[in-house]
């Protein structure tokens, strides 16, 4: 077994301080996250928008609409057409993006232009932990089909 003392501690920088990222259990039952944030992540479409922003930091409303439509339908093994996308577009503009903004999770100038850029706000560690936890559990049907052990014969 080779131990490189210098490198081993590299990834430990975050825990230098006394602050510890709470467990998902603590996040779910405690009061580290506000109700507005819980409400914001309680909806599939808002979560998919956030997951995409976690990867790209920013996206136009146009692209977020494509992503939320394609991804949320694909999670249910469904194809989406233009009418489905129109419904998602309306929901995003009038309900979901404003809610995400009010919860302090995204910033954008809401003037109804599809080219408007939505930017992920700086997120606290508990919010990131919660989103990561939710992300890994999204689209359960596929997970069961494709996950390890799913094809045991």
């Amino acid at each position: 077994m080779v131990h490189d003392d210098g490198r081993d501690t590299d990834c430990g920088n975050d825990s230098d301080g006394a602050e510890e990222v709470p467990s998902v259990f603590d996040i779910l039952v405690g009061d580290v996250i506000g109700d507005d944030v819980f409400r914001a992540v309680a909806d599939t479409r808002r979560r998919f928008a956030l997951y995409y922003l976690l990867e790209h930091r920013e996206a136009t409303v146009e692209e977020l609409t494509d992503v939320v439509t394609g991804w949320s339908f694909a999670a249910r093994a469904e194809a989406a057409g233009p009418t489905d996308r129109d419904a998602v577009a309306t929901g995003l503009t009038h309900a979901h993006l404003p809610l995400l903004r009010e919860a302090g999770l995204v910033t954008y100038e809401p003037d109804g232009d599809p080219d408007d850029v939505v930017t992920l706000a700086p997120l606290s560690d508990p919010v990131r932990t919660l989103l990561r936890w939710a992300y890994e559990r999204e689209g359960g049907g596929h997970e069961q089909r494709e996950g390890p052990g799913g094809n045991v014969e």
Partner: protein
Amino acid sequence: MTDGEVFADLLGEVEARRREFVVYAADEAEADVVAGFDTRNVTVTHRSLPSGGPPGFVVIRGPDGRFAGSVGIPEVREFLSPPIRRPWDDDWTGGGYRALLAVLDEALFVSFDRRQLLATSREIEDRAWRAGRGTLRVGFQSRASFELQLAFYRRLAADTDLDVHVYGSPDWIRDRPSIEGVTLHEAPEGLAAYWFLAFDGGGEAENACALVAEEWYPDDYRGFWSYDAGTVERIYDALGAVEG
């Protein structure tokens, strides 16, 4: 036009209409999921998703740049290696397959094999079967491929009010014994090379659909399918001339 000219024209037009496939996936290698479609008529872009989450998806944008549809990557993979079923089979679930075909309507495919084309053909036959009326026109490239489907076409003709027309090269269709409810036609040389199906929708334009494919290499087909009533009508006009 009584030869394959109309098919060649349609293929050319479809090829000229560019589409964009945006593949959203954690792994860039997944972009190959759409490799069966022609890069001359399709632009493929990849956008990354965080790893460890639900499956990715493909967004299709039409020639006008507008959103034409989206579909999950697992469904595209399944679509490209489909089980072959009959409309009356208990496990037939044509719905998902149909939605996928609608999303990929008039995208040019270049490397489909027999099995993929059979599955697509099944969808058109299934529509005709469910409509139970109207006209279905089908071209077979060889006697062998027709005989394989014979039982199905007998049943289609016997169980529905469909008007079924089958086209084939004169060298095999001329002497073939007749089939009740199925009209056999000698196809001119240019037409006999194509695998095609066209259903007029049985009085409902939104049910009209067609598939046109040519075998450019053994078991390697290029072509398209369409839910456009105008496209189906053009195929009908060309075939109508055959009947004279």
